[in-house]
C-alpha cells in the first residue's frame, strides 16, 4: 500500500509537467501558424522558431 504514496505524487507530477509544457507552447506562440510551421521544419534555412509575442 505504501507504494501508492510514492506512485500517486509521481504520476501527478508527470501530468503537471505535461500541463506546464502545454502552457509553454501556448505562451511561445506555437499555435499561431500551424500551416507555416509544418513547412518550415523541413528546411534548414528557414527560421523555425515561432515569432516573438508582443
Amino acid at each position, binding site marked *: 500500500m505504501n507504494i501508492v504514496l510514492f506512485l500517486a505524487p509521481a504520476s501527478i507530477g508527470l501530468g503537471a509537467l505535461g500541463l506546464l509544457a502545454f502552457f509553454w507552447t*501556448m505562451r511561445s506562440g506555437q499555435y499561431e*501558424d500551424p500551416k507555416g510551421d509544418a513547412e518550415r521544419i523541413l*528546411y534548414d534555412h528557414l527560421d523555425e522558431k515561432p515569432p516573438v509575442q508582443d
Partner: protein
Amino acid sequence: MSASLTLERDLEAFVRRDEAGRGRLELLVTGARCAACIRKIEAAVAGLPGVASARLNLTTGKLAVELAGNEAHPERVVEIVEGLGYRACLFDPAEAVSAIDREGRELAVALGVAGFGAGNVMMFTVPAWAGLFGQELTPATLTLMYWMAAIVATPCALFAGRPFFRSAWASLKRGKANMDVPISIGVILTLVVSFSETMLRGQHAYFDAAVTLLFLLLIGRYLDHRLRANARSAARDLLALQTPIAMRLSGEAEQGVPVAEIVVGDRLVVAPGDRVPVDGLVEAGHSEIDNALITGETALAPVTVGARLHAGALNLSGRLVMTATARSEGSTLAAIARLMEAGAQTRSAYVRLADKAAALYVPVVHTVAAATFVGGWALGLGPREALLRAAAVLIVTCPCALGLAAPAVQIAASSRLFRKGVLVKSGAALERLAKVDHVIFDKTGVLTEGRPRLVDAPDHLLTLAAPLARASRHPLAKALAAQAGAGPVAAEAIETAGQGVEGLIDGRRARLGRAAFVGIKDGDVRETELWFGFENDVKIRFVFEDRPRTDAAEAITRLRHMGLSVEVLSGDLAGPVRDISQAVGVDHWRAGLTPFDKAAIVDGLKAHGRKVLMVGDGLNDAAALAKAHASMAPGAAVDAAQNAADLVVTGEDLGAVAEAIDTARSARRRALENFGFSALYNFVAMPAAMAGLVNPFIAALAMSGSSIVVLLNAARPRLWRGR
C-alpha cells in the same frame, strides 16, 4: 520632396512606429502555399534596405515586416512581393491592431487545467468505483482515494471554473440566471458535498464529476469562441484590404491620410482606379465615374470641373482633384449607416436556439434539485442523503450535452462552408439563414460579374481596334484588349483622361474612346460604349454590357427547388434589370430603387412574416442587408455591405448561396436532434438521481456518454455531403 516622389502614393500612414523609430508594417499576401514561397518572400523583403526582418504566417497569410528606420518605403515592399507573383495588400493599422485574443487564451488555459484534472483524478476514482461494486477495497482505502482525488480535483475545478463563476456572478447581479448559474452552483455544491461525505466516511464522493463536467463544458465554450474569433478576424482582414486612405493635397505635395481625418474644404486627389473617399466637387480634371456600388447603375457617368462626386464611386480614367464638401461621417453614407444601425438592433433581438433551450432548462433544473432536497428531507431521508441526491440531480443534468449541442454543429457547418469559400460571421447567422424563405438579389456585381464585357463584335473589327486598346488603361479598352488577345501595340499612343487614346496603327492615325473624341456628335448614353476610327474613315461602335455570372441561372433554379421564392431589386434602369432577370430566370424584379426603397421593401416583406435573405454588394444594399433576416455579400463588396452581411462569399460562384442555405438547414436539423437527445437524456437521468440510483460511476458514465453522442452527431459526415 522631389517631383517624382510627389506622384507616388504616400503610404507612411500604414506604418506603426514605436518611440525608438522602429516601424511595423503588415501585409496580407495571397497565393503563398509552401516552404519555397515563405523562403522567397521573406528573403526578398528582408533584403530591402531599412527592413530589419520579415516573417510570413502561412495560416493567416499575414506578412509582418519590421522596419529599422525611415529608409524602407511601404510601396517598395508591396512591389517586391507582387514582383514575385503574389498578391499583396497593405493593412490598415487601425484594423490590423490584432487585439490579443485574451478570452480565447483564458479558455484554452482553463481547458488544459480541466483536462489535466479530469485525467488525473481518474487514478483515484477508478479504484473507488471498483469499491462500489464490492471489490476488495477497505473503507479506509476508499477514504484515502477520495482524499487524493480531492487534492487533485479541487484546485483544478476552482481554477477551470472561473469563466463560469464570473459569468454567473455577473448574471446574478443583473437579477437574472443564465446557464452558468446552475453550472456554478452544481460544481460548488458537488465539491462541498464530496468533502463532507469524505470526512464523514461516506460511500459517494463526486470529485471526478466536478472537474470532468467543467472539462466537457469548456470544450463547448472553446469551440463557440473559436467560431466567433475566426470569423471576426477573417472579416476584419477583408475590410482592411479596402483601406480607407485618401490622398490629400497640401501645397503641391500629396499626403496619405485616413479618411476619417478629412475635413470639409480639403483638396483631395483621386487617381484612376481609386474610390472617391468623401462627397465632394471636382476642382480639376475630367474622368468617368462608375457609380455601380452606390446606385447600382451600370452606365458610366462622365464628370468634369464642378461635377458632384459621391463617396464610394470608382474613378475610372482620369486623375481628379476634388474639394471635400462633407466629412466621412457626413457623406451620403451617413443616412445609410443610420438605417443599418436600426437593422442591426432588430437583428440582435433574435434569440439563439441554445439560449431558448437554456431559458427552459435553468428554472426546471433549479426547481427539481430544490424539490429533491426539500422533498427528500420531508420524506424522512435525512438532510445528508437529501443533499447528496440534490447534488446528484445537478450533476447528471448538468448541461454538458446542451452546451455542446449547438457549437459543435455550427463549427462543423461553418468550417465546411469556409472550405467552399463562404465566411460565416456567427452561429446565430447560420440559425437565421436556415429559416429563410425568400431570396432577394441585387443585380450589379451579384447576379452579374460587375465588370463590362464586349458584346459580340466581329473578329476583324476587334483586330483593327486592338492595338490602340492595348495602349490604354481604361477598363473598357482593357476589356476589349482582353477579348482580342495578344498582338501589336499602337505607336505614339497618347491617352487623354476621360476622353480616349490616340495613336498610329500601321502608320495611320486612329482614335479609340468616347463618341465626341472619335468625331461622332452624340452616342447613345444609355449604353456603355467605345468608338473607334481611323482619321477620315468610317467609325465603329463597340458596345459593352455587364454579363450575368455563368452559374447564375443554375443557382436560381436550385434555390427554387429548395422551395424559396426569388426576386431582383436593383437601382439600375429598367432595361438592363429586365434583361438580366430574364436571362437568369427570375420573374419578379424591380428597377430604379434607392437604398431607402430597398430597405422599405425588406421591411414590408418582414411585416408579412416572410424571412428574407438579402444578397447584395453595394452601399445601396447595405441598409437592406442589415434589415433582412439573413444576408450575404460577395468578397468584392464595399466594406459597408460586408459589415452588414452575416455571410461573406469569397469565391466567384453564386451557387454558394444555395450551398450555404442547405448547410444551414442541415446544421439546424442536427442541432435540434442534439437538443432532443439532451432533453431525452435529462428526462431519464433526473428521476434516477432523485431516486438515489446514481452513484459516482454512473454519473461519470452518463455525463461523458451524452456529450460524446452529441459530438459524434455533429461530426457525422454523411449528412454534410448534401447533394
